[in-house]
């Protein structure tokens, strides 16, 4: 029989106010076994997400039913270990990929999908977001550049791609750094008139896209709102963010 303490603290009712790991109980000064293993499981899932791989063939096949063509690209980071230590390489395309970008034309929007720090996020959530976003983009009458899938990519790789494809705006959907309870958060980074060398202050970000966080449809609506604002006001980044936040606060 389990007679040793493996129960929460008397103030466990406070848990309804926060997702923080409060009132876990203790044995001596240590965590009870169950609480310890709950943490280890969450960390294991986050670690697995960092080392997960894009289900590329399946993803490309599904994306082609939404929009063609789909370009398969790779950054200069050869593998995950190099990717983690050399963010500069993840921001640039390798030579073979650059050749694939010689597509003629001008576009309103370029959509880029990249594994980032959680391919799991792309594997789970990219298709429903892209499907709905492309529907809405077509309704707006915006022209769409070829869909791009980048392996071992960082956010800024989207700037190089969209610049080469002559797209006015870029949306990069990318796996975010896994949190302990969110190994599959998808992030979306938006830039107006992207070009190589831009930094974070030129971008707007929508974070934590997943059913338990920001649901798909809400994310798509927010993306459309930001894209419309960018196109109307011809800017993105800090300036747009400040006014967006102020609007939220006054409402």
């Amino acid at each position, binding site marked *: 029989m389990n007679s040793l303490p493996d129960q929460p*603290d*008397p*103030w466990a*009712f*406070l*848990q309804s*106010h*926060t*997702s*923080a*790991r*409060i*009132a*876990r109980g*203790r044995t*001596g*000064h*240590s*965590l009870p076994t169950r*609480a310890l293993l709950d*943490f*280890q499981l*969450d*960390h294991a899932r*986050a*670690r697995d*997400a*960092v080392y997960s791989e894009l289900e590329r063939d399946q993803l490309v096949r599904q994306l082609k039913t939404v929009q063609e063509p789909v370009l398969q690209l790779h950054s200069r980071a050869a593998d995950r270990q190099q990717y*983690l*230590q*050399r*963010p*500069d390489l993840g921001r640039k395309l390798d030579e073979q990929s650059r050749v694939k970008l010689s597509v003629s034309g001008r576009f309103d929007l370029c959509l880029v999908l990249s594994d980032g*720090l959680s391919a799991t996020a792309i594997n789970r959530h990219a298709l429903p977001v892209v499907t709905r976003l492309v529907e809405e983009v077509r309704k707006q009458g915006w022209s769409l550049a070829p869909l791009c899938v980048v392996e071992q990519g960082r956010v800024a790789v989207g700037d190089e791609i969209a610049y080469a494809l002559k797209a006015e705006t870029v949306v990069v959907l990318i796996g975010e*750094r*896994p*949190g*302990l*309870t*969110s190994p599959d958060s998808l992030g979306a980074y938006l830039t107006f008139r992207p070009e190589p060398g831009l930094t974070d202050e030129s971008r707007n970000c929508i974070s934590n896209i997943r059913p338990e966080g920001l649901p798909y449809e809400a994310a798509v609506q927010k993306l459309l709102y930001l894209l419309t604002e960018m196109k109307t006001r011809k800017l993105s980044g800090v300036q747009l963010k400040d006014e967006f*936040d102020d609007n939220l*606060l006054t409402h």
Partner: protein
Amino acid sequence: MAYRCAVRNVTYRFDDLKTLLAKATPLRSGDQLAGVAARTAEERVAAQMALADLPLTTFLTEAVIPYEIDEITRLILDTHDADAFASIRHLTVGDLRNYLLSDEVDARMLTNLQAGLTPEMVAAVSKLMRNQDLITVAAKCEVVTRFRNTIGLKGRFSTRLQPNHPTDDFRGVAASIVDGLFYGSGDAVIGINPATDHVRTVMRLVDMMDQIRQRFDIPTQTCVLSHITTTLQAIEQGAPVDLVFQSIGGTEAVNTSFGVNLALLREGLEAGRSLNRGTVGQNVMYFETGQGSALSANAHHGVDQQTCEVRAYAVARLFEPLLVNTVVGFIGPEYLYNGKQIIRAGLEDHCCGKLLGLPMGVDICYTNHAEADQDDMDTLLTLLGTAGVNFIMGIPGADDVMLHYQSTSFHDALYVRNLCRLRPAPEFEDWLLRMDLINTEGRLLPVKNTHRLLQAAGL
């Protein structure tokens, strides 16, 4: 000026002081990313040998970042105390290591030496030290600071209670504060990272935490870790601000990227002191630092990340802070790749900060894309407990649900206190006794669900 070291039949040449320092630095990914690390293990030791033979006076004549372009270099050289330096003036860097580790040198002598040491001297000697040296020297130091309690006394060990919440929800924050207090945490500060840096949000959080503190008469201080300009606005609008927070780095350029400079920090210090809220002391500043910040802002001038970090301590000590916290593993694996690198960096920062006279705490932490886990944090935590760290973080279950990284928990702090026989800050310890939360041996007492702390903030 170039420096040389011959190893058997190879002569290694190092173009200038910053190159010598960088090549002598124990391996870490950030220096590799910056392209300043030693190319081979042998080159690293050759650099350490050349560094060991370098007279300390070299650091007074050769700057790693030019005096003309960097206000921190100017600060370091203009405030150097020749009298305090006199007793070690004749030493080399290698001699300094021997001196610091010698039986004759104690806490009082190290305190007297502080103003004679420059960050670059301290960084240099740390590069010649093994982990046990970093622990031995740090454990000799005693740096005590005061606001509403006394932090850093020998045999004491404090925690920052970090009750972050993804949306700054009051009841969520209060729930984590109560959880931490029940576990005896929060004597360094109850300090929240706000999810947004708006002055209205910050003021409401400051108010809310001050109410809890006053209601239960807790001898500690509170802080919302907003940008210093936001805190200044909050002070101007009458918020009950205890501590003025700011992230700082070791070059003028990285501080520019943080939106601060020495003049603005001075303004923060004066505004904080003007409120006169400390009861036992007037150390009102709280700084955070971390290796790699200068490189990530492209503001490192070719200086290795550990030397940049120690230069940040020159900024910190100008403002007599209550707390300085190196957030050692937060920045990611491109700067500190794995547990080994994080552990080494944590010990370096703690030792170097203490030598320069700072009340060092360490956020013993990692992100999920680093090659590290809670076992590595246990190791660093235990080492820092023996090294006499002033404070660590206390976060529910070690999991920060707002910043998404893992640090140390309330349980972890209890572990170190019990294992190393360390006690909370004296005023806070008395409060824990009064509240029936610990017994006279410092052990936690069982809590009933009628305890009056549970009346906090409408919970």
